[in-house]
């Protein structure tokens, strides 16, 4: 454990001068930390722990998927053929590319290049929005084909209808939750953009960009798992 004993750096906002409830503006050391390094370590660890909770959160749905995929393997494979493989593939590419732009944004922040940072943030947001747009097209398509579970659900093979409904329940739950995370991600990027424009990030202080990047990559990775499970399992049937 490297953090066993912290460097006793002279605390800029130490116990002396700052008001007790002090909330430092971004880029400054908050009063309850001893050093910038400590503050940054806390923020990164916090995000990693949060991502662990996210894995468990999605994990429940992945478990349900696994069990029903085992139980209704044939019907699930058939139901997945109702996915638009082209849109799904494009969306996967869009998302992977957005991870690249996000990584570039983090790099720009670390090297203190403000314009590049803003550019890459905007690019990431555009790609994220594109993903959501394509997803919306797919959802609309499913609604038109009565593939949303519930009373209006209609499936061409009656004997498989129940299992297919379960597939689409999982599909909407998993992709819907993923889309929700994308929307939250766009909100975070917007905040970063505003902060970046104000010049809040410097080579010394860019933790928000870095940990938001972690979050964005995580959301991408979830999709990397969703795509084959929901789109590709029926490919071999052709």
């Amino acid at each position, binding site marked *: 454990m490297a953090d066993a004993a912290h460097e006793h750096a002279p605390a800029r906002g130490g116990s002396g001068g700052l008001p007790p409830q002090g909330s430092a503006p971004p880029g400054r050391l908050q009063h309850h930390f001893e050093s910038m390094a400590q503050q940054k370590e806390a923020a990164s660890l916090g995000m990693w722990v949060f991502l662990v909770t996210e894995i468990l959160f999605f994990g429940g749905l992945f478990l349900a998927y696994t069990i029903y995929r085992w*139980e209704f393997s*044939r019907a699930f494979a058939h139901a997945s053929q109702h996915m638009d493989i082209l849109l799904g593939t494009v969306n996967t590419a869009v998302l992977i590319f957005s991870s690249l732009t996000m990584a570039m944004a983090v790099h720009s922040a670390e090297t203190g290049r403000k314009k590049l940072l803003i550019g890459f943030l905007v690019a990431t947001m555009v790609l994220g929005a594109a993903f959501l747009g394509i997803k919306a097209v797919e959802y609309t398509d499913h609604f038109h084909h009565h593939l949303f579970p519930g009373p209006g659900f209609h499936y061409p093979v009656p*004997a498989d209808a*129940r299992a297919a409904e379960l597939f689409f329940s999982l599909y909407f739950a998993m992709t819907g939750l993923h889309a929700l995370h994308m929307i939250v991600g766009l909100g975070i990027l917007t905040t970063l953009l505003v902060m970046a424009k104000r010049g809040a990030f410097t080579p010394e202080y860019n933790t928000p960009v870095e940990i938001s990047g972690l979050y964005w990559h995580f959301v991408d990775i979830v999709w990397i798992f969703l795509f084959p499970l929901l789109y590709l399992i029926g490919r071999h049937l052709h």
Partner: protein
Amino acid sequence: MGQTLPLFPDQASTMAGRVDALYFYLLAVSVFFATLIALSVIVFAIRYRRRSEGELPRGIEGSLKLELAWTVIPLFISLSFFFWGAKIFFAMNRVPDDAIEINVIGKQWMWKVQHADGQREINELHVPVGRPVRLTMTSEDVIHDFFVPAFRMKQDVVPGQYTRTWFEASKPGRYHIFCSQYCGTKHSSMIGWVHAMEPGDFQAWLAGGAASESLASAGAKLFQRHACNTCHRPDSLARGPNLEGLFGKQVQLADGRTVVADESYLRESILTPNNKIVAGFQPIMPTFQGLVSEEELLQLVAYVKSLSKPAAAAPPQSSRVLPPSNRAAPPTPSQKENPK
């Protein structure tokens, strides 16, 4: 109040004594350890009480030997609990071959019982003493639980699937049935009685009851009514697997898996036929979800089971379903031989 204060439940099944023996063993060990710890705390608290405010006892770091002792000893004692408990659990789950079969259907808020010969009961269950009884149970709505404290027997009754348990009553008498899985408003009214009777009395009860037709023959009629027999037939026109002699056998599925044709498999095949396609057949069977009730399903299952019993035990009606010639020369149960 004038109530009595019971401390121990009736022992009325072959399992009760075995469960209680383990219970008393657990109790003895628990009392020993609880007393040991309580006494140590009391003795230490008195012996080493603070006599003056300025006391400063010497620190003791700990002792690896002691730590190991109180890790390993409880571990071994626990293992004895585990093995004994597991042994009983296995016995509870291994149904004797000669068991009487009775079906139980739970529904908010009553127990419906079907005997093989067709007798039906509600919130009552008549069984003979000295014979194992196997219960096949399901629910029409939510999860219930069939609990007979005097038999030390309990099993959840789950909608959408069959659960099984068994008991052998050892003492004639009347014992509580409780629903012990919370199931809604009148959960505590979902209770009834098991009547454990001497075998002679039980026979008399069976004979005296308003026995309609047996489950298997009711199932045979359903089999015809739903035209199951147009596809499930032993001759060359069959488009579905032959059901004669099927029950209890291994079935080879189209996707390579094998399953045992038990009650749950039959049930699943009627309700979601496309789940498990038998090797060599097409997924053409329609679902019967919503077309047959839980009771009818159990009748159909009873019928298919009856097709696997020796001809003497088969219900007389079965000949109406299958041409007699087939009975003389039944085809092998292997599904692979069937034409596509």
